[in-house]
Every structure is written in structure tokens, then in C-alpha cells.
């Protein structure tokens, strides 16, 4: 279990984090969302030991993280970079050795990752000569090389084309299936919704909500949608909500406790073509909790 507990951090006068906590279980993929400047990168840097929190701890399985244990965490910083002039295999090997792998273990890990990430034939190419997609794979290889127990990825999907997104998703899901805890930040809420088991939403340095996606949905305000054909205007005046008319079709989206009353009115007014609860999207939940 990767855990951050009650993190506080200020840069001079500016408070970046005030009491951020999160937990990622082995095998869980957690999306970390928040507006720009909300504190995602600061939180991840503290977990990775790049920043020292003013208060709070980060731990793995209850033991505070130190440099030795952080070598078992795979990390991708937000604006990614590699040594441009270093060759692919040499580069991955270097980071493997820095994480404590022996020369022979590092070589084995490199050849395994080169295969897994389809980098065959590129081992001796300088990174700067690779396409962006392939550079991204090398970056991922660097994060994965020491068989991490957890992955901390800052905006791993930004700037990727849909195919590269899919292949990264595949790799993350495969790692999670092997029991790796995955924490990644993203602005692509549809993507987070699609692949994450749980979501943490941060706003202005504070964790607003955190939990499984289904649970967040259940907590969110539910909206009822009714579509009626051939009704007279004004049938829905008794209910709060958005009311739209398109020719003789009227749509009401409302927040109500009494769905049956809405249905009765609609039936009296005209022909009910649609009636049901809307599933709030993550984007809607995000706007609601951050607002």
C-alpha cells in the first residue's frame, strides 16, 4: 500500500499543500486529478522524496519511504526527459544500475523491457533520434526497469496520440494485474474514468474527495432526465432544473427527490419518450466538487 498522510508544504508564502492524504493499494490504478496548480506535482514529488514536506509522511506498507525503498518506485516526471545523446539500452541500463541492479540484472531487465515495449532494433540508437512515441516508451522503460512495486506517473498521457495512449494503458493495466500500485495524474477525465479503479480529486492543496469511481458516482448529486413529446409548455413549472424545448419535444433535467411526481406530470402532459437517472460523468463530478 502506497500511502501519503496529511502532507503539508509551503513555498515561502505560498501554501501548496494543506493536508493531502491518499492511499493506493497493490493492483489498484488510481487517477489523480485536479486543476493546474492544485498540488498534484508537489504531492508526487514529495512521495518520490524530491521535496521534503513541512508536515506529513509518505510510506509503503506502513514503513516511511527512504531512498532505498524509493528505488522500488517507478517515476515519470511531468515534463519528461532523457539524456538526448545517450543510446537507448545504455540509458535504461544506467537508470537500472542507479536503482541498485547489478550489471547482469540490469542487462536482463533491459532486454526484457526492450521486448515488452517494442523497442527491438533501437537499442543502439541515440534517444534524440527516436520518434516521440518511442522516446515515451524509453521513458516508461526507465520507470519500469527496477521491477517497481508502485508507479508514480505525472501526466503520463499528455501529448500522446490515441494509439500511444492505448499501449500505455495496456502496460499499466498489465502491471496493475501483477500487483503494482499505480498512481497517475491526468487532465483527461474520460481516460481516468475508463481505466481507473479509484480517483482522488485535489483542489487548492486539499484533497476534496477520494475513492472508487463507483462510490464517487453514488455520492454525487443524481439528475433525472425526462423527454416528453407533444406536451404543452409549462407542464414542468413545478420542478427546478434545466428545461429545453426543441420543436414539440421537451426535455427536463432536474434534481429531485420525488421522481414519481415528475413522471406523473410528464404522463399527463404528453407522450414520455425517455425517463431515467443520468450517470454523472467524472467530469461532472469534478466540476461539482471543485466548484
Amino acid at each position, binding site marked *: 500500500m502506497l500511502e501519503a498522510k496529511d502532507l503539508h508544504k509551503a513555498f515561502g508564502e505560498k501554501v501548496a499543500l494543506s493536508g493531502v492524504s491518499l492511499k493506493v493499494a497493490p493492483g489498484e490504478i488510481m487517477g489523480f486529478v485536479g486543476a493546474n496548480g492544485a498540488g498534484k506535482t508537489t504531492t508526487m514529488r514529495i512521495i518520490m522524496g*524530491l521535496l521534503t514536506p513541512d508536515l506529513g509522511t509518505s510510506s509503503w506498507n506502513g514503513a516511511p519511504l527512504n*531512498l532505498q525503498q*524509493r528505488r522500488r518506485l517507478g517515476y*515519470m*516526471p*511531468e515534463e519528461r526527459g532523457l539524456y538526448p*545523446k545517450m543510446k537507448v539500452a545504455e540509458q535504461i541500463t544506467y*537508470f537500472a544500475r*542507479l536503482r541498485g541492479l547489478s550489471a547482469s540484472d540490469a542487462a536482463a531487465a533491459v532486454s526484457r523491457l526492450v521486448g515488452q515495449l517494442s523497442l527491438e532494433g533501437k537499442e543502439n540508437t541515440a534517444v534524440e533520434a527516436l520518434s516521440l512515441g518511442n522516446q515515451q516508451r524509453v521513458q516508461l522503460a526507465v520507470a519500469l526497469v527496477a521491477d517497481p512495486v508502485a508507479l508514480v506517473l505525472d501526466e503520463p498521457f499528455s501529448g500522446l496520440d490515441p494509439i500511444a495512449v492505448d499501449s500505455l494503458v495496456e502496460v499499466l493495466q498489465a502491471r496493475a494485474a501483477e500487483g503494482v500500485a499505480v498512481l497517475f495524474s491526468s487532465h483527461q477525465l474520460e481516460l481516468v474514468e475508463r481505466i481507473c479503479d479509484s480517483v482522488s480529486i485535489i483542489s487548492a492543496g486539499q484533497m476534496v474527495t477520494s475513492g472508487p469511481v463507483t462510490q464517487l458516482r453514488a455520492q454525487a448529486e443524481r439528475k433525472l432526465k425526462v423527454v416528453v413529446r407533444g406536451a404543452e409548455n409549462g407542464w414542468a413549472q413545478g420542478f427546478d432544473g434545466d428545461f429545453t424545448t426543441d420543436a414539440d419535444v421537451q426535455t427536463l433535467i432536474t434534481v429531485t427527490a420525488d421522481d414519481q411526481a415528475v413522471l406523473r406530470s410528464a404522463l399527463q402532459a404528453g407522450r414520455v419518450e425517455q425517463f431515467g437517472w443520468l450517470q454523472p460523468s467524472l467530469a461532472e463530478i469534478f466540476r461539482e466538487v471543485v466548484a
Partner: protein
Amino acid sequence: MKEFFLVAAREIKVRGRTKSFVISLVASALLVAALAFLPSFFDDGDSSFTVGVVGQELAAGPDVTYKKFDTSAAAEEALRAGEVDAMLLDGQTLVGDGSVDTDLEYLMRQAYQQAQLTSAGVTLDPLNVSTIAGKEAPDGARVALANLLVILLFMLIMFTAMYVAIGIVEEKSSRIVEILLASVKPWQLLGGKIVGLVVLGFVNLLVIAAAGLGASAAAGEIGSLPSGIGGIVANTFLWFLLGSAFFAALAAAFGSLVSRQEDLNGVLSPMTMTLIITYLLSFFVATKPESTVAQVFSMLPPFSAMAMPVRFAATDVPLWQILVSIVVMVVATIGVMMLGARIYQRAVLRTGARLKLAQLFK
């Protein structure tokens, strides 16, 4: 400690493979080798002269051989043909083709004056020349070597420091440093980088020394090298290590304040200015190694980094001054390293606009 060596090894491997390093290595070795051949190239090795003579000869010593001619016209012809270096008419007039070699002119003038004195019945006692223990005049070969060292040390220290700064900004701007610092401590990263690049500079200096000494031997000039050349070379290596470590630590501290290579020159200017002042001072030291200024600056870090090896090459330095200088420089280098590491640690993750030192320590 393992990480430290991994970082150093990467620097050596990657930087040592770059074109710029290989070119500067080969170019500097060739240059020094060429300099070693230079004396034998200019010196034609022949200090004897042939003089065409018409009439009376002058006793000009063993270096002057006379060739008799009956008429001045015949002698002039021989002079034009280059068969003789000059012609002497009646023991009174020396004629050269275009010019007269200064050494020859000196010899002939001496002989001419001696002949006049002898004919006037004057005999001169030679001047007695002897020395008491004291300061010797600067040895020309040593001063020349000292001047060469100034340039070499300046170039190598400057390259080493610049490479350190460029490497730091490269890692900072590409955020590799974040991945690195998740696995290694800042001092390991900084120290490994400095050590790796200083080792490369040291290798460059070794190659230069080998090329210079090798070429001197090949040119048969090894005997004309100053005595104690071994000590001079060893001393230079020691001071290169101290000096490049000092300036590399400064370069690291300043370099970590910026995030883009374009900003590097501006932020490094205090470091480069210090190095250039050291460079200019060392030229002065090479020419006046015994002056008070030379004595003071060869013991004052960081100027001593170049002033001491240069002075050591140019003259004999008292042992106590050498020891004081080394101790003070070692202390200063350790101090700058510790300060540089603190600045680096605070600055290296803060990308964006150029940082001010005051921002880091509030």
C-alpha cells in the same frame, strides 16, 4: 558510494565520446608536440660561418673559416652565389648579402677591436666573473614552459568547469534530474559529475604531457628541457586537480540557478571572470616569478590554482610556500564544494526563471 562511481563513469563514457572532447584532445596534443619541435626547427644547428676574404684576415675564433679570394669581384660573386656568408675586405670592411648574421657580426667586431688593441700595444686582462649564492636569473626555458602552462591550465580548467555547468543545465532542463534524485543523493550526483569531468581533463593533460615529452625526445631536445621537469609536470597535475575541482564546484553552483543553456553564459560570468583574472595574473607570475605579487597570489586561492604551478615552473619556490598554498587551496576547494552542493541541492529542482542566490536561502 556505488552510485557516485556510476555517475562519474557515465560522464567519462558519454562526454569522452563526444566529438568536441576528442577534437580538443587531439588538437592540444598536436599543438604541444609541435611546440616541442619548434626550437630545432628554427635553430639551423650551424653556428659556424664561412667568410670570403680579400687581403688581411682577422682572428675571429674557431667558428669562422676563411676562404681566400684574389679580387673583391671574385669574393662578391661567391657571396652572391651563397658560397660564403659574408666577405671581409682588407681586414676592415665586412660585407653581407642583404644582411649580415648578427652572431657573425659580433664575432668579427670583437676580432676587429682586438686586432686594433693589439696593434696599439694594449693587452687586456679578462674580467673575472664568479657568483655568490643568491637569486639566479630566470631560466629562459623555464619561463617559456611556464607561459605554456598558463594557457594549458586555463583551457583545461575552463573546459572542465563549462562541461559541468552544461551537464547540470541539461539534466535540469530535461527534468532527468528528478528521476536521478529519486534514486541518488544530490551530493552523489554532483560529486560524480565533477569527478568524472575532472578525470577527463586529467586524461587530456596526461596526453598533452606525453605528447610534449615524447616529441621533445624525438626532436632530440629532451636535454634542453629545464632540469626538474618531472617535478614541474607532477606539480601541474596536482594543481589541475585542485583548480578544476574548485572552478567546477563554482560552475555547478551557478549553473544550477538556470534552466536553459541560453542563460548559462550570463549566470556563469562571475566564475569565468575569476578564471580570466587568474589567467592574466598567471602570465605576470610567469614573467616575474620572484615578485611579491607572484608570491602572494601563488598562495591565495583560487588564483594559486594557476599561479603556483606556473611559478613553480618558472623558478624555484620555497617548500613552505608550496605547502601553505596546497593546504589553503584544499581547504578552499572543500569549502566551495560544500557550498556548491547546498546551492545545487536547493536550486536543481526549481525550473523556470533564473534563480537568485538570496531566493535559495530564505
